[in-house]
C-alpha cells in the first residue's frame, strides 16, 4: 500500500457543458474510482460549478480547503483569477495541480498543453499541403479566455512563418459546432476564396456545414477531436479523398493530473511545469481513432500511474 492510501484528492472543474468536459469527468471517475478501490487514495471526488465562472470556482476551492482535502486538481476558469484561492490552499498545506486551464500561481503545479504550438502547427501543416499558400479563415474560441488567446497567438506566429498565408476572416465559434456554423455562415459571403480553415477544436464540423450550405469548395479544415468532426472527415475522405489533420488536447489529461497529484503527495520530486503532447490524429490514424471513440463523444487518452511517472522523470 502506497503512502497516499489515506489521502483525499478533489477535482475542481469550472464547466461541464460540452462533450469534452463530460469525457474529462468520465475519465476522472473511471481512473479515480479504480484508484480508491485499489487503496491508492482515500477518495477522488469531482466538483463542478454551474457556470463557467472564476468567482464561483474560487469559492469552490475555498470550500475544498475547509473540507480538508490533501490535494486539489483544478481545470481553471482563468489562469490568474483563481490565484488568491490557490494561494490560500497552498498556505493550508494542500497540493494544487492544474491542467488544461492552468493557473499562474507559482505554488501550483501545471500540466500544460502547448496551445501556442498547437496553433502554429496548424499553419505549418497547411503550408505542407498548400505550398502556394492562400487565404485562411480562423475560427476562434471564447473571447477573453486564455486558451483562445494562446492558440490564436500560435496561429499568428504560423502565418508570420509562412507568409504566403493570409487570414482574411476571423470569427468566434466559442468551441461549439452550432455557434461556429452560424458565425461562419455570416462571414462567408463577404470572403474571397478560402483554402484553409484554422480552428480550436469543437468547431470543425460546424464550419464544414456552413461552407457546404454556402455552396463553396471545401477548403482544408483543421479538425479538433470531437467524434462528429472526425466522422465528417472520414466520410469526406471516402467520398472524395479529403485530407486533413486533427490537433487537440485529450480530456483524459485530467487523469494525468490526478496521478501527478498522487505522486506529489507520495513525496515524489516533481517539477512545477510539465508538458503533455497534444493529441494528433492524421489521415493514417483516423480510422483507428474513430473506432475507439464512442459516437458523439471525444477522442481521448487516459493515463496510468506509470504514464505519470514517466512524464515526471522525463521532465526531471
Amino acid at each position, binding site marked *: 500500500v502506497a503512502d497516499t492510501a489515506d489521502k483525499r484528492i478533489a477535482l475542481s472543474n469550472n464547466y461541464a*457543458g460540452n462533450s469534452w468536459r463530460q469525457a474529462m469527468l468520465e475519465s476522472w471517475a473511471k481512473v479515480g474510482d479504480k484508484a480508491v478501490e485499489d487503496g491508492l487514495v482515500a477518495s477522488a471526488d469531482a466538483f463542478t460549478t*454551474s457556470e463557467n465562472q472564476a468567482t464561483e470556482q474560487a469559492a469552490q476551492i475555498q470550500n475544498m480547503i475547509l473540507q480538508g482535502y490533501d490535494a486539489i486538481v483544478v481545470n481553471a476558469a482563468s489562469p490568474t483569477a483563481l490565484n488568491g484561492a490557490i494561494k490560500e490552499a497552498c498556505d493550508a498545506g494542500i497540493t494544487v495541480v492544474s491542467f488544461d486551464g492552468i493557473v499562474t500561481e507559482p505554488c501550483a503545479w501545471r500540466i500544460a498543453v502547448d496551445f501556442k504550438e498547437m496553433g502554429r502547427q496548424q499553419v505549418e501543416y497547411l503550408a505542407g499541403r498548400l505550398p502556394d499558400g492562400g487565404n485562411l479563415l480562423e475560427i476562434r474560441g471564447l473571447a477573453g479566455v486564455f486558451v483562445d488567446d494562446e492558440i490564436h497567438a500560435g496561429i499568428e506566429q504560423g502565418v508570420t512563418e509562412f507568409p504566403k498565408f493570409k487570414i482574411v476572416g476571423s470569427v468566434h465559434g466559442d468551441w*461549439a459546432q452550432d455557434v461556429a456554423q452560424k458565425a461562419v455562415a455570416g462571414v462567408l*459571403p*463577404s470572403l474571397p476564396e478560402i483554402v484553409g480553415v484554422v480552428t480550436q477544436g469543437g468547431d470543425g464540423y460546424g464550419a464544414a456545414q456552413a461552407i457546404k450550405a454556402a455552396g463553396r469548395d471545401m477548403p482544408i479544415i483543421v479538425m479538433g477531436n470531437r467524434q462528429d468532426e472526425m466522422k465528417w472527415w472520414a466520410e469526406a475522405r471516402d467520398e472524395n479523398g479529403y485530407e486533413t489533420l486533427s490537433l487537440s488536447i485529450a480530456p483524459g489529461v485530467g487523469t494525468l493530473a490526478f496521478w501527478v497529484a498522487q505522486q506529489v503527495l507520495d513525496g515524489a520530486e516533481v517539477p512545477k511545469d510539465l508538458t503533455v503532447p497534444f493529441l494528433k490524429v492524421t489521415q493514417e490514424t483516423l480510422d483507428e481513432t474513430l473506432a475507439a471513440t464512442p459516437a*458523439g*463523444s471525444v477522442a481521448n487518452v487516459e493515463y496510468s500511474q506509470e504514464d505519470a511517472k514517466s512524464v515526471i522523470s522525463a521532465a526531471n
Partner: protein
Amino acid sequence: MDNSRLSTVLAIPRRPWFWAFAASAIAYFATLSLTEGRGGGELLSAALTFASFSAIVGLGQMFVITLGPGNVDLSIPATMTLAGTLSLKFMDGAANLILPGLAVALAVGIGAGTFNYLLIRLLRIPPIIATLSASFLYQSLAIWWNRGLRIKPPEALADFSTGAIAGLPNLTIIGVLIALLSWVVLERSIFGRWVSAFGQNTRAARLSGIPVETVRAVTYIASAVLAAFTGYLLASFSGGAALNMGTEYLLISIAVVVIGGCSIAGGNSNVPGIWGGALLMFLVVSMLNSYGFGAGVRLIMTGAIIIGIVAAASGKGRPT
C-alpha cells in the same frame, strides 16, 4: 385618399419595428459593400436561416415579456438543450421516428413550461429567478440523460432543416408561419387581449374577470414549447444536440424582443419587430466579422446598436 395613403407611408418610421428592419438593411448593405455586391444571396439566405431560430425563441420570450415587469423566461437555453438532447437520443437517427421525436421535444417544452409556471405560481418565486433555477435542473437532466453525447439526427430531418423551397429556407418558412400565428393570437384573439391586459395591470385584469392564472400558465408553456421546438430544429440543423447549444439564445431572445419594439413594461408587443430584431442580431455580427473587428469592438458595437435602436424607436410619444 391620396393624402391618407401618404400619411400611412409617413407613419411607417414611427412603427416600432421600422428601426430594426432599417438597421438590418444597413448592416446587410454595409457587409455587401465589401464585396461590391457579390454574395448577396448567400448572406440573405444565411440571415433568414439563422434568424429563424432567434425569431422562434424570441416570439416565445415576447409573450412572456408582454406579461409585464419581472416576467422573463431565462430557461430558454436549457429547455432547448434538453429538448434537443432527449428528442435526438429518442430518434437515434431513425427516419420513422421523426414525428414521435418532435412529440418528445414538444412534451419536454410542455413539461418545462409547466414546471416554470408552477414555481412561479405555487412557490411565488419571481419569474426571473424561477426560470433561472429551473434551467439548472434542465441542464442537469440533459447531462444525466446522455452525458453530452452528440447524436446525429435522422438523415431526412437533417435534410429538411437545411433545405429550402424555391430558394426560401424551410426554417424561414416555419419561422414566418409561427410569427403569423403569433400575430393573429396577439392582435386578433381574445387570448392576445388577455395577455396585454395582464401586462398592463394584472390586478385590474383579474377584476375584469380574466382568468389570469390560465393566461400566465399558457404563456410560460408557450414560451417553453417554442424553445423546445427550436432546440429540436437547431439540433437537427447542426448535426446533433450539444449541452451548450442554447447558450447564446438567452441574450438573443431578450434582445430581439426589445429591439423589435416590444414595450418591456408589458402590455404591448410587436410581432414583425421580432423578425427585424432577429435579422439584425445576425447581420450585425456578420457585418462586424466581415469588417474584421475584434471581439471587443464587436461587443461594444452590438451594445451601441441595441441602445441606439431602442432610443430611436421607443422614445417618448411612441404610438401604442
